C-alpha cells in the first residue's frame, strides 16, 4: 500500500491539470465575449487601433445610441412577443404530438412520426420564397401571426423528437393511477405528463428561444411594416453594405445577447436533469 500522502498529492496534481484544462478552454470562450463588450465601449476609429481589451475611455453612450438608432424599443418588444408565443406554441403543440406518438395508439402514428423526423433532416432551400407565396395566398403575409406560425413549424420536428424520447422513458404507473381516478386523456397529459417532463421542456425552451431570438431573414422577407420587425433586423442596419458602425454593432449585439443568456441561466438547472432524461434512452 502506498501512503496516503501519495494519494493526496496525486489527487492535487490531477485536479490542477483538470483546472488548467478547464480554464484554458474557458479563456477562449470568454475572450470573444470580452472583445465584444470592450469594442462596444470604444469609438469607431479606436476599435482597430487600440487592441487592448480594456478601452481607454468607456463610451457608455454607445449603448444609448444603439438603442435609439436601432429603434430597439419597439423591436425589442416584438422579439419578446415572438419568442414567447413561438416557444409557448411549440411547447404545447409538440408535447401534445409527442405524447400521442409515445402513448396513444392510432392508425398512421408511426408514419407521421417518421415524416416529422425526415423533415428534421431535409432543409428546404429557397423555402423563403415558397413561404412568402404561401402566406400571401393565406393573407397572413405581413402579419405577426403568419411569422409566428412559420417559426413554430421550424422548431416542431426537433422538439417532438426530444419530447417523444422522454415520454417513452417515463413510468406509466402515475398515468394509470390518474386514469383510474377518472382523469381524461387531456387531463393526464396536462396534469401528469407535462409536470414530469419539466426538465426536457426546459431544453426545448432554450433550443427554440435561441433560434427564434436570432432569426431575421424570414422576418425581413415577410414583413413590409417596420413596426413588426424583430430585434435582429434592427441590428443588421449597423452592419451596412459599405460602412459598418462597429461600436454600435457590438453594443447592439451585447444588448441582444443578454436576454438569451438570462433564459439559459433560468433554465439551466432544469436542463441538467432534462437532457439526460431525454437522452439516456436506448
Amino acid at each position, binding site marked *: 500500500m502506498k501512503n496516503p500522502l501519495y494519494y493526496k498529492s496525486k489527487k492535487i496534481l490531477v*485536479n490542477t491539470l*483538470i*483546472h488548467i*484544462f*478547464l480554464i484554458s*478552454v*474557458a479563456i*477562449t*470562450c*470568454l475572450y*470573444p*465575449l470580452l*472583445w*465584444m463588450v470592450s469594442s462596444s465601449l470604444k469609438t469607431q476609429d479606436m476599435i482597430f487601433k487600440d487592441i487592448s481589451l480594456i478601452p481607454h475611455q468607456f463610451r457608455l453612450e454607445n449603448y444609448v445610441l444603439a438603442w435609439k438608432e436601432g429603434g430597439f424599443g419597439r423591436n425589442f418588444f416584438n422579439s419578446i412577443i415572438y419568442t414567447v408565443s413561438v416557444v409557448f406554441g411549440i411547447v*404545447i*403543440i*409538440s408535447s*401534445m*404530438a409527442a*405524447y*400521442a406518438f409515445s402513448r*396513444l395508439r*392510432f392508425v398512421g*402514428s408511426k408514419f407521421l412520426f417518421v415524416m*416529422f423526423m425526415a*423533415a*428534421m*433532416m*431535409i432543409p428546404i*432551400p*429557397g*423555402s423563403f*420564397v*415558397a*413561404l412568402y407565396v*404561401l402566406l400571401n395566398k*393565406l393573407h397572413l403575409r405581413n402579419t405577426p401571426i403568419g411569422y409566428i*406560425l*412559420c417559426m413554430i*413549424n421550424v422548431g*416542431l420536428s426537433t422538439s417532438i423528437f426530444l419530447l417523444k424520447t422522454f415520454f417513452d422513458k417515463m413510468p406509466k404507473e402515475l398515468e394509470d393511477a390518474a386514469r383510474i381516478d377518472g382523469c381524461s*386523456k387531456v387531463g393526464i397529459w396536462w396534469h401528469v405528463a407535462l409536470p414530469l417532463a419539466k426538465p426536457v421542456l426546459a431544453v426545448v425552451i432554450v433550443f427554440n428561444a435561441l433560434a427564434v431570438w436570432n432569426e431575421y431573414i424570414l422576418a425581413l422577407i415577410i414583413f413590409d411594416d417596420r413596426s413588426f420587425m424583430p430585434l435582429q433586423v434592427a441590428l443588421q442596419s449597423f*452592419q451596412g453594405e459599405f460602412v459598418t458602425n462597429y461600436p454600435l454593432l457590438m453594443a447592439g*449585439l451585447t444588448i*441582444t*445577447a443578454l436576454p438569451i*443568456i438570462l433564459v*439559459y*441561466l433560468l433554465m*439551466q438547472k432544469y*436542463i*441538467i*436533469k432534462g*437532457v*439526460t*432524461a431525454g*437522452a*439516456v*434512452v*436506448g
Partner: protein
Amino acid sequence: MRIKDTLENYVFVLPAVAIFSIFYIIPFIWVFQLGLFEWDGISFTKVFVGLGNFKEIFTQDVNWWHSMWNAGYITLIALTLQNILAFMLAWACDREIKLKNFYRVIFFIPPVLSEVVVGMAWRFIINDIDGANIINRALIGMGFPGLAHNWLSDPQTALTVVAVVHCWKGFGWGFLIFLAGLQTIPRELYEAARVDGASSWQSFRKITLPLMIPVMVLVAILTVLGTMQVFVLIVSLVGGEFAGHTSVPVLRILASMRGSSRFGYACAQGITFGLVLIVISFIQYRFSKKGQ
C-alpha cells in the same frame, strides 16, 4: 365510445400535423417541383427539364461533390474533436470540482454569440496582419517558426481552421448534454467499483462509457445535422469558397440561387443534399442500434 376515443387520439397530433402540412409539406412540394424546372427565380414562366437538373448534379457538377466532401471533412472533425472535447469538459465538470457552476455557464457562451463576433474575434486571434497573431507567436515561442504562417489563406490549413472554429462554437451544446448524461449515472456505482478495487480508468471504461452510449448517439446525430449545414461562419472567416477549398453545400446552393439565378437547380441541389443527410442519419441510427 370507441370511435370517440380514437378521434380523441387524433386531436393530440392534429395541431402539429396541421401546421406541418401547411408550412412544411406545401413549400416542400413546391421546391420539389421546381427541381424539375429551369427557372431564374423571377420570371412567371418556367421551363420543364425533367430530371435534367439532377442529371447535371450527378454527372457534371464536380464543385458540388467537392463541397459535400468538404462538409464531410468538417463533420468528421466535429464528430471527433468537438465531441471528445465536449465529453472531456463534461467529465471534468461532473467531478466534485470547484467553480463547476462557473464553467457550466462559461462553456455555453460560444453557442450564444453571433457568428459575426465569432468570425471577427477568431480572425483576430489567427490573422497575422492586423491581429494579435497569438497562435503564430506561440509557435515561434515554442521553437517552431517554420509552422508560423497565415492559417486562413493556406489551402492546406484553411478548411481545418474553419472546422476547429466551428467545433469551438458548437461544443457548448454537446457539453451540456454530456454533462446531463453523466450526472444521471448513480454515484453508488462508482463507490461500489472503488470498493471492489477498480482504478478510476477501469470504472470510467466499465461504467461511464457504456452508460453514455445513447447520449453519444444523440449528440452525434445533432452534430451531423448542425455541421453539414455550416456556412455563415465560413463567410465571416474566409469570405467565401476560397478557390473551392472551403466551399460547402449550402454555399453552393446559394451560389446557384443568387450568383447564377438558377433557382430550379438550387432546389434540386437542396433535395440531393437532404437525401444524403437522411441516408447518413439512417446509417448512423442503424449503426448505433447494432452497437448496443
